[in-house]
């Protein structure tokens, strides 16, 4: 499989069937030797780690919502969603990395090469989703590799393998998009209003995500940005502006010094 150019691979995370068991978090940690992060509960429902970071590559979010069920009765719903690196088509982390440590694999995923990363930290504020982060002890950055090592051995990622409800699905991205579309139609037919796909549009600000999601509410509710844009989209304009400012500096100094003695 690695010999020929493989297809772009990706995740489809269907949050409507997530039961919040965190098997994905655990499988990821075990397979990738990710150090433990925060032990104990945060008080945000059953959330342990609050968000993605250097030591959390899958994060299960728990949202408790109060909402009217009948005219006179308040009910509650519990949203659960396993978040992960989006493996963006236009990945800001990769664009801004000065060392070439972040690279795009033959599977179309975005991976950090730990032996090259120098810990400059540029990728951290570049990621519009708050995914990648620095480990304070070793000074380098870490994030989901989409189990690059497993993919090269024709295995599915550890999280997808461990997920008992098929909330995390893995396969060629095209197929994931189709499955996501089918599932959305199913839910819509069943009358579930808030259901929506996240990151499936190749024309969005990051050129489409390599990990797509089916959500039951707006992205913000899950801590996801509703319309992220890769910061390097504006980079040519920025270089232009900086060039003008540089010329202005040179010209201004020349004027001030040359005018009169």
């Amino acid at each position, binding site marked *: 499989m690695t010999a020929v150019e493989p297809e772009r691979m990706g995740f489809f995370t269907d949050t409507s069937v997530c039961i919040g068991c965190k098997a994905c978090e655990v499988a990821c940690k075990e397979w990738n030797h990710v150090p433990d992060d925060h032990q104990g509960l945060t008080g*945000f429902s059953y*959330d342990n780690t*609050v968000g993605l*970071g250097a030591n959390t590559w899958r994060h299960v*979010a728990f949202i*408790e*919502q*109060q*909402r*009217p*069920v009948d005219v006179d009765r308040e*009910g*509650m*719903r*519990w949203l659960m969603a396993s978040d992960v690196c989006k493996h963006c088509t236009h990945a*800001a982390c990769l664009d*801004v*990395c*000065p*060392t*070439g440590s972040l690279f795009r694999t033959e599977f179309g995923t975005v991976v950090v090469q730990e032996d*090259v990363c*120098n810990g*400059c930290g*540029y990728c*951290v*504020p*570049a*990621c*519009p*989703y*708050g*995914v*990648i*982060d*620095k480990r304070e002890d070793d*000074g380098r950055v870490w994030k989901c590799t989409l189990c690059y090592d497993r993919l090269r051995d024709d295995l599915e990622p550890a999280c997808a393998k461990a997920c008992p409800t098929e909330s995390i699905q893995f396969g060629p991205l095209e197929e994931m998009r189709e499955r996501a579309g089918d599932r959305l139609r199913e839910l819509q037919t069943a009358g579930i209003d808030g259901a929506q796909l996240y990151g499936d549009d190749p024309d969005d600000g990051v050129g489409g995500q390599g990990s797509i999601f089916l959500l*039951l509410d707006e992205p*913000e509710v899950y801590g*996801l*940005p*509703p*319309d992220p844009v890769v*910061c*390097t989209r*504006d*980079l040519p*304009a*920025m270089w232009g*502006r*900086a060039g003008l*400012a*540089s*010329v202005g*500096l040179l010209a*201004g*100094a020349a004027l*001030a*010094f040359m005018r009169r*003695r």
Partner: protein
Amino acid sequence: MSVDAVTVDGVEGARSGRHAAPEQVARRRRGGGREQRMVPDAEPVSYYGQPVLNRPTWKSRDIAGYFFVGGLAGASSIFGAAAQASGRPGTARVAKLGALGGVTLSAAALVHDLGRPSRFYNMLRVFKPTSPMSVGSWILSGFGPAAGVAALSDLTGRAPRIGAAATASAAVLGSAVATYTAVLVTDTAVPAWHDGHKLMPVVFGASAASSAAGLALVAAPSGESGPARQVAAVASLVEELSLEAMTRSMSDEVGHAYHEGRAGKLLRAAKACTAFGAVAAAVAGHRRPVGVAAGLALLTGSALTRFGVFHAGLASADDPQATTGPQRARLAT
């Protein structure tokens, strides 16, 4: 409503609740206050009030400090070349030494932020135009030696031709050193930085020029101070006006980071120093003590501006509304 209470009474409603419409979401401010608010669905919400972005890991002393000393070095190189060409050797020497000192401190700050000197070499593994940090590293590695040779040749009087070539290249590279850092910060997802990308190079460039003028006023012969005083007055004005225009061009959700908290304090202090420095420079004439006071104020003002911009970015990265608000507004149009 407390989160626990919802857990308990919510279990039975969980299934049927899915069909019902407008829900309310508990929202908790970061910092863990007890206070919780019910926010209607239509308003932007976030996950327990947590930031969407990961906070920049850069240390402010290293990186904001680098923006200042790097800017000082870059603009001083321009001063060095211009002063030399216009026959002001005293100013030229001060500016060239200032550039060398500035770029040395810059290297120290960058290496300190990386943790180990050897890590800087990884920057020169590749050249990536999509990475302002890669471009900047290459610019710096040309600029540093040029500034060094220019200063040494000036001090020793040796190799004047090489010295002149180094002075000229340091000036051109210096103009890039003084402004590329604006691209570096704005090429991120941090709203208060990114949304300022049109004017940040002007803010940084002007701030660099005003610091270089400040250094010349402090240390160069006062008989040669005419151009430095002019630059001081113009650059300070441009620095403050462009910063003002930049924050005004942002939506309130984003721009408020520049007015509140630590960033607000730093930037108000920066404005006071810069204004004082500009006025003092304008009236100083050839009076040395006034010139020195003006110069010190300008240097301080420039440094405070960089720290202020830096902290505005940190505050903005921590604020989920600054990230999601403008995005939601964009989707609504």
